[in-house]
């Protein structure tokens, strides 16, 4: 997995790291169980303060996406194939999504454009294959 941080950008560095790890999990670049460098190693590789990386890892841990063990180090705790999200998460996410889409509508982006962009982004993510038995079950019934 590759991380590209813009230190002079408007988004805080810890948020950039967090966002890119989330995207890597969604695109299966970082599947569940895959390791990440330790906070100290990643801080050295990016040339940033170790507390900044610690903050992003802590955020990811709170979101249930990262597991940090003494022996195993930082490991992706889940991915798209790990089942549904925890209760209450979807409602929170829907609120943030609404604001994000509202920004596009407020800026005058046509509805078709917004939907096609959403589809293009979702197409980049890796979703677990639907089992053949489950997909054909409806036709048999």
């Amino acid at each position, binding site marked *: *997995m*590759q*991380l*590209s*941080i*813009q*230190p*002079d*950008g408007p988004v805080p560095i810890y948020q950039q790291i967090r966002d890119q790890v989330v995207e890597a999990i969604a695109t299966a670049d970082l599947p569940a169980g*895959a*390791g*990440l*460098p*330790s906070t*100290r*190693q*990643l*801080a*050295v*590789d*990016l*040339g*940033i*303060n*170790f507390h900044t990386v610690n903050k992003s890892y802590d955020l990811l841990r709170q979101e249930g996406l990262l597991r940090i063990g003494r022996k195993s180090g930082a490991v992706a705790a889940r991915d798209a194939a790990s089942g549904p999200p925890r209760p209450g998460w979807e409602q929170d996410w829907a609120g943030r999504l609404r604001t994000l889409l509202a920004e596009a509508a407020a800026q005058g982006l046509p509805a078709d454009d917004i939907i096609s962009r959403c589809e293009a982004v979702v197409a980049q993510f890796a979703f677990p294959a639907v089992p053949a038995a489950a997909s054909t079950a409806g036709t048999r019934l």
Partner: protein
Amino acid sequence: MTPAILTGYVVVPLFGALMCTAPAVTRPTLQFGVRVPAARAGEPVIARQRRAYRWRTAAVAACATAAVIALRGHGSWWLPRIILLLEVTADVGCFRLAHKKITAVKAAESWFAGLRQTMAADTSWRTRPQPFPVRWLIPAVTVIAATAITGAARYPYLPSHLTALGGRSVPRSPVSAFALVIGQLYVTGVGTGLLVLVYRSRPDIDAADPAGSLRRYRTLLATYARAALTLLALVDVTLLLAALQLWRVCQPSGAHTALMLVPAGAGVLILITAAIRAGRQRAQLADRQQRPGPPTVSDRDDDRFWKAGLLYVNRDDPAIVVATRFSVGWTLNLGTPAAWLVIAAIIAAAAGLALLRITAGL
């Protein structure tokens, strides 16, 4: 061959040649210690300064070598060293001149305007770390072991006074007899320790092509490490040959003294050749793999952390070792206390060796 002749006839022209060819093995986005966006690597000022630097350093090397030859037989052992010091100062001056000219044009034309300055990392560097070439350490360890065993076997038969390399007579003691084995352990220990630090440090990654540049860095590091470990083994062989003379296994003669330096010299040449080859290959591949059109992503302009374009001082960067900006190699981040600890440890070990030498009367 005395150290003075070695400095005069070998080190002075060799150093001059290395300084002259250094820009050819440096990353195209780092010109004379100045960070340059990939799209600006072909700017006329850079081509002009590279040409001028080549001529200036070639002239410095020619003058220094001519001075060494002309002053042969005059002065003392220190004369070639003074000439070498003057050569180093003049070469650094040439580097600074090119550095200043490029920095001035870069600032005047705002080369980084409109570019997204990025710091890139590839997590595979840590999750699939480059294995340290331990097998290449075996020759050095074998040579040290062979030296120690030979010394132990010879020790009971050694006379009460030994003839040191300078011709002085020193009383026999475990320290005076095994001083060269301690020297081997020091050289191999410090060399391997620094190499391990490099393996654990940050790779030299290009933000516009992280995966490709990491691949190239892995190749460069593997080549460099193998050459460096070969150099350590060959330096140990030189020390073994010196020890054989000290222990009177072979009689000292002019030819033997000159022969002793051949392995270490060969090791230096192997390391230089490997570094130049690996550096050139990396620079050429980086050139070839540049995407068409102006890139929007660039490495971060971190010139302010490089003092005189050569010394890295960044308190906010936790890295101890970083890739050097000129030629191929690594340097310490003088902004971290850990780097000063490394320097202190090396100096302390060297001081310990010197003290040991004095107490042994060598």
